[in-house]
């Protein structure tokens, strides 16, 4: 590949976060260098907490403007010095899709959302209409044109944000973990579109997707505040070996959690409850049916805001056995989260029954019982993390179980070490997205529910981090269901892979 005149040049970029209460000042970038040719597509692989989001925000002018801290070095896009401009002045130069889509959506209709940046540029109405149509079509969002973005699933929100970028069509596209939470068809469509539009693109990701192979021109690694180019040809065995060693590809054949009987991780997870606690105890042996759902039917109410909605979820039978790990795949909007919410009692099916194992036999479960039986990690970790420090966050559930203070401290310390979390007095809001996901998982690890559901937990986590999380939750007396778009992860970590299509299990 012939490298053209660089379009994006990062020279000796250094950045340090300021000191926050409970979090010491940290030098994140220590002389980053990067060159991207015009119209090239590059993937920057970095494990969680290495600064992917901070790098994106620096390039678009949000850091240090909103974060504080000090930045040094040069960043040029063509002839524009990016560090010398405000974010709103870089609208036509750099476009960013946030890792957390809920943080970027502002308006009450999808078409308004796409048109908003075009209005800021002062573009005429007919031109906005044309670009809007193009963007909606490119992301297959035509039917959601007048919908509220708040009603979209996580993957659909990302599609909408990409549509916003398509409409503006900036010179440099920054996609911060954008391919996560997208189904395979949408990922392929997006990569093809990037190739066709010939815009300079930097995709930041915590894992290597095989789909990248046919579309990307360069692959970089970011570790310990530096960026290094991978010289091995993309797709070669050396390339795969390197990524496997660095934790960007799941080494399926080496997985300890597959095929073998899952063992509780040492030290023993806290399965005991406080004396007198009414928590549901399953105590089944491996292979016993833990939960059985039959003839489930669910449909959102007609006045739910979804115009012309025909979505319904229909599950003839679903059985979860103790010691089993199930993966649930499915396109965006196919009903994966809806099924998860039904199994933990947050949504009530219109028809059908869910039975759980209680006192040695299967019994009909009400929503209250399912709430106590199932742990459910929301797609958005921020909706489950509220307290000022990690310790308070982890201790909350245990305090409500009336466990002794010393025991709480012991269990919290254990969870912090197991989930690789920072010190106990660190404010969760200042942690990276991946670290917040690990904290969210640690909260439910301590609650030790018989059934765990992880909704797109791999998004924002490296493959090894997610595999480790799965391993922690695997237990002979418990069941685990994880929702993902990653077929390789599903096949590598689960005993059984289920797929939802238009609300039906295949």
């Amino acid at each position, binding site marked *: 590949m012939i490298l053209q005149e660089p379009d994006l040049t990062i020279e000796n970029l250094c950045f340090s976060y300021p000191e926050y209460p409970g979090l010491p000042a940290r030098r994140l970038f220590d002389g980053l260098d990067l060159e991207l040719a015009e119209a090239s597509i590059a993937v920057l692989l970095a494990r969680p907490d290495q600064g992917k989001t901070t790098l994106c925000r620096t390039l*678009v002018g*949000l850091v240090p403007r*909103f974060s504080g801290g000090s930045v040094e070095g040069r960043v040029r896009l063509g002839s524009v010095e990016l560090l010398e401009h405000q*974010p*709103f002045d870089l*609208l036509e130069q750099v476009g*960013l899709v*946030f890792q957390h889509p809920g*943080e970027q*959506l*502002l*308006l*009450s*209709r999808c*078409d*308004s959302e796409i*048109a908003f*940046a*075009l*209005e*800021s*540029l*002062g573009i005429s*109405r007919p031109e*906005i209409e044309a670009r809007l149509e193009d963007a909606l079509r490119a992301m297959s969002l035509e039917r959601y044109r007048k*919908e509220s973005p*708040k*009603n979209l*699933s996580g993957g*659909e929100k990302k599609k909408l944000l990409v549509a916003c970028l398509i409409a503006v069509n900036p010179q440099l596209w920054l996609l911060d973990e954008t391919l996560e939470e997208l189904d395979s068809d949408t990922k392929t469509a997006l990569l093809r579109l990037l190739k066709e539009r010939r815009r300079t693109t930097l995709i930041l990701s915590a894992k290597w997707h095989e789909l990248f192979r046919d579309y990307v021109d360069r692959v970089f690694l970011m570790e310990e505040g530096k960026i290094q180019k991978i010289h091995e040809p993309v797709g070669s065995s050396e390339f795969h070996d390197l990524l496997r060693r660095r934790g960007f590809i799941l080494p399926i054949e080496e997985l300890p959690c597959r095929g073998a009987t899952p063992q509780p991780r040492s030290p023993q997870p806290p399965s005991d*409850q406080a004396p007198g*606690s*009414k*928590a549901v105890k399953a105590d089944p042996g491996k292979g016993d049916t833990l939960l059985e759902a039959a003839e489930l039917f669910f449909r*959102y*109410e007609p*006045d*739910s*805001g979804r*115009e012309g909605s025909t979505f319904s979820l229909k599950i003839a039978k679903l059985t979860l056995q103790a010691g089993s790990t199930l993966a649930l795949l499915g396109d965006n*909007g196919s009903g994966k*989260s*809806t099924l998860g*919410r039904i199994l*933990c009692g*947050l949504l009530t099916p219109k028809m059908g029954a869910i039975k759980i194992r209680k006192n040695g036999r299967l019994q009909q479960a009400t929503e*209250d019982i399912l*709430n*106590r039986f199932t*742990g*459910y990690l929301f797609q*958005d970790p*921020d*909706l*489950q993390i*509220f307290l000022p420090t990690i310790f308070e966050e982890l201790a*909350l*559930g245990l305090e*409500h179980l009336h466990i002794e203070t010393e025991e709480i401290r012991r269990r919290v310390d254990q969870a912090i070490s197991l989930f690789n979390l920072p010190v106990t007095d660190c404010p969760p809001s200042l942690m990276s997205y991946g670290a917040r996901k690990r904290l969210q998982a640690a909260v*439910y690890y301590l609650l030790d529910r018989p059934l765990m559901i992880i909704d797109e937990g791999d998004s924002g986590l490296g493959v090894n981090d997610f595999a480790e999380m799965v391993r922690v939750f695997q237990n002979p007396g418990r069941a685990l269901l994880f929702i993902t778009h990653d077929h390789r992860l599903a096949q590598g970590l689960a005993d059984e892979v289920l797929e939802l299509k238009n609300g039906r299990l295949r």
Partner: protein
Amino acid sequence: MIPTVYGKRGLSAVHCFDPRGKIILLGVFLVTFFLPLRIGHLGIHLAAVAVLTVVFLGIGNVLRTLRLILPILVLVLILTPPFHREGPVLFSIRSVPILTVFGLVEALRLIVRFTGITLIFYLFMGTTDPDSLVLAFRWFRLPFSVSMVLSIALEYIPTIRIIYDQVRDAHRLRLADETMEARQAVNSGRTREKGKSKPRGKRGHRLAESIPILTSVLILSVRRIPTLAMALECRGVGRKNRRSSFHSLKTGAPMIRDGLITALIAATVVFSIVLFP
């Protein structure tokens, strides 16, 4: 896609009515409810607003809204009369008047006023698209930044409700053991165990349950402020050039029709105030 009731859009006459007219009528009704009118007069205005709200937003939504303000209305009913002891005495303790006709009328006046303002805002927000609100504010010559702030603030109300629901679900799952124990205690009227707090009544329990949820919602809402600012700047808010507009307000005959209807309703309200003060 996870639909919520908050994105609901309607095609009714009120939903499609010109937002400029709605803003004018909102102002007229707000002023009316604040004027020192007779209680009967205020009651007629309240009834008109209530009927419109029920017709266009549904009785269920109206009742839910009224349930939210019910504790405040009860407090007003209890606390207002002792401060207005003029007029015929309805209830006294040892010749100290506690409830007089005047005190009762004042309490009712405040209740009608507060309910009316709540419903008129609810009707306005429930039937008006925030995007068209920005356009309407800009038509009234408010700068874009002010219109945007107003629209985001108004839009944030349903967003907070969505966050509240999600956080409630998160708390429900996380504290399910504790919640179940407390519920069982409430339902069975169980006496308290040594060292444990007294089980609260159903209403007290619900109130106690909602405090951590509200606190969490507040924290999440505050946390959203910087990301909201980032998202706005990434979409070009702050640029010096003139903004264009994708959506547009009504023009021509529909604008004149809605303008005339607005004028007619406003005139009717003003005349009723002049004729029956």
